[in-house]
């Protein structure tokens, strides 16, 4: 109940304080035709007019919005737009001046914005020309006119943006438009380190191979050692192939004889078992080996010349004998 009473009191105060609304219709026709008068009547304070332009900097040929703001007019709904298009200073500056349509402001509006679309003529730095703005003031039943100014505002017109011709595709060899991706492939070739590594690696692998083989096959090592002697190697190769010979016993005996000649220095002239045994004794060959040798050779001769069918001399037996003498076998 008390709140409603306060509200009614406030409305009554505003109604009482509000002055009588001024209208341009109250002015004489002569007053209304004064130069630079655009129907503005001031209320309690002075009227202010200001320019603004947006954008401040833009290329030539592009339209901008020029705004004239009128403040403190008592009759905002009656204001008329200054005819910029008829003013020489604006005509010099702009090729196009168009008043933008806008809704009529309400009588209570304090600021009225009048917008124009303008298009600068040339490039450079310019100023919106100062605008004389006359307004009326009613005082004591009389009308007085005062002048205010919308001050100049700088703006810039840059070079026009040249519209590019229709874009043309970039010409070039088709292969050149591809990007090569194998970037981890390096240039040049291997350096000295690689070559030294190759030689060193090969040496290490070879030595490892030989060492491993010798470690795994100790007998083979000894066999390898005896094969380093040409007489032994040839005798063993002949004995291993003797079974293919037409007379294996003769081939076996001859291989043994060749071995003794090449390896132990038995004279070539020693052909019979006795001669060979004698030659072996002359070089201090062990007696047991001499006996075995002589017996084997006699058995071979017996097979060859005596017609005995089966001899105890076989290539394998002689191979085993030679390997034993050479220390390969125990």
């Amino acid at each position, binding site marked *: 109940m008390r709140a409603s009473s306060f509200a009614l009191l406030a409305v009554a105060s505003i109604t009482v304080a509000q002055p009588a609304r001024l209208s341009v219709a109250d002015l004489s026709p002569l007053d209304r035709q004064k130069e630079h008068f655009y129907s503005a009547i001031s209320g309690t304070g002075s009227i202010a007019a200001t320019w603004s332009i947006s954008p401040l900097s833009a290329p030539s040929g592009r339209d901008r919005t020029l705004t004239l703001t009128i403040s403190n007019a008592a009759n905002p709904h009656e204001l008329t737009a200054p005819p910029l298009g008829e003013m020489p200073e604006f005509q010099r500056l702009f090729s196009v001046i168009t008043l933008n349509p806008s809704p009529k402001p309400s009588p209570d509006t304090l600021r009225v914005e009048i917008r124009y679309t303008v298009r600068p003529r040339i490039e450079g730095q310019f100023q919106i020309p100062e605008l004389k703005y006359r307004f009326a003031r009613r005082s004591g039943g009389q009308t007085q006119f005062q002048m205010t100014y919308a001050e100049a505002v700088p703006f810039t017109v840059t070079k026009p943006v040249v519209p*590019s011709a229709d*874009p*043309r*595709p*970039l*010409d*070039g*060899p088709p*292969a*050149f*438009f*591809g*990007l*090569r*991706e*194998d*970037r*981890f*492939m*390096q*240039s*040049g*070739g*291997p350096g000295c380190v*690689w*070559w030294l590594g*190759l*030689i060193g690696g*090969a*040496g290490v*692998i*070879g030595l490892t*191979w*030989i060492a491993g*083989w*010798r470690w795994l096959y100790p007998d*083979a090592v000894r066999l*390898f050692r005896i*094969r380093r002697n040409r007489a032994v190697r040839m005798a063993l190769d002949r004995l291993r192939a003797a079974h293919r010979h037409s007379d294996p016993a003769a081939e076996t005996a001859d291989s043994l004889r060749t071995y003794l000649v090449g390896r132990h220095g038995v004279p070539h002239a020693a052909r019979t078992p006795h001669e060979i045994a004698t030659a072996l004794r002359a070089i201090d060959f062990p007696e047991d080996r001499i006996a075995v040798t002589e017996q084997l050779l006699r058995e071979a001769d017996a097979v060859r010349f005596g017609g005995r069918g089966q001899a105890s001399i076989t290539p394998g037996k002689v191979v085993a004998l030679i390997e034993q003498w050479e220390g390969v076998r125990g």
Partner: protein
Amino acid sequence: MNSATVALLIVMGQPDVSFREAQELRADAGAARLKFIEAAKGYDAVWQARNHSPAVATNRGRAHALAGDWAGAIAAVHAGLRESPSDTTLHHDLETLRDVVPYPAGLRPPPVSGWRSRVSGWDLFGLATVCVGLITIGIANRFTTRDGWALSIVTVGVIGLFAVLAVKWQGHREARWEAERPVRVLIRETTLRKGNGDSYEPRLEWPLPRGCEVRELFRRGGWVQVELTGGAVGWLPEASVITF
């Protein structure tokens, strides 16, 4: 551009990104060219940072070419061939670029030849590895089971290794010859003169075209003595050739 920035460029593949963007803008020559210029600058930085892979050389040459810098492209490809003489892509790109240069008759360089251009260092190394392997196997066999084929494969290995060394030696000679007569590329149309000065008469009736490849023989007083493909010798201002 410091080394850290260049390293970052390499890691991020920034020139590749620009190259790909340029590819997408191919329909608009102006925009694509700007991107290719950006890519070319990026590849130049990567190359200066001693990333001399054939891929970088190829992309660098292509970016320069599509940016309109044909002379720079030829120089970039030559720089790549100096590091990877046997790279077939670079050979192909060089021939394509030479097609663009309006060479007078008889002045177009022949395709790159020689052993260096046919066999790469890694190919030789691979072949040498096989040969050394054969030799190793043969020798190891000779000292172990002593099979009959040991000597044969050692022989094959030694012959192969000698062949590899011969090719490598020839390649070394070719590289030395190249170093003594480095390739230079003209960045603008220039008159070849008989002496090291503008007052000397032209050596040829017509100026050498932009992108023309010459071999440098000597330098004196801001001028370069060069030899053309046909054997003609003359002088060019230093500022007219790219040294890479």
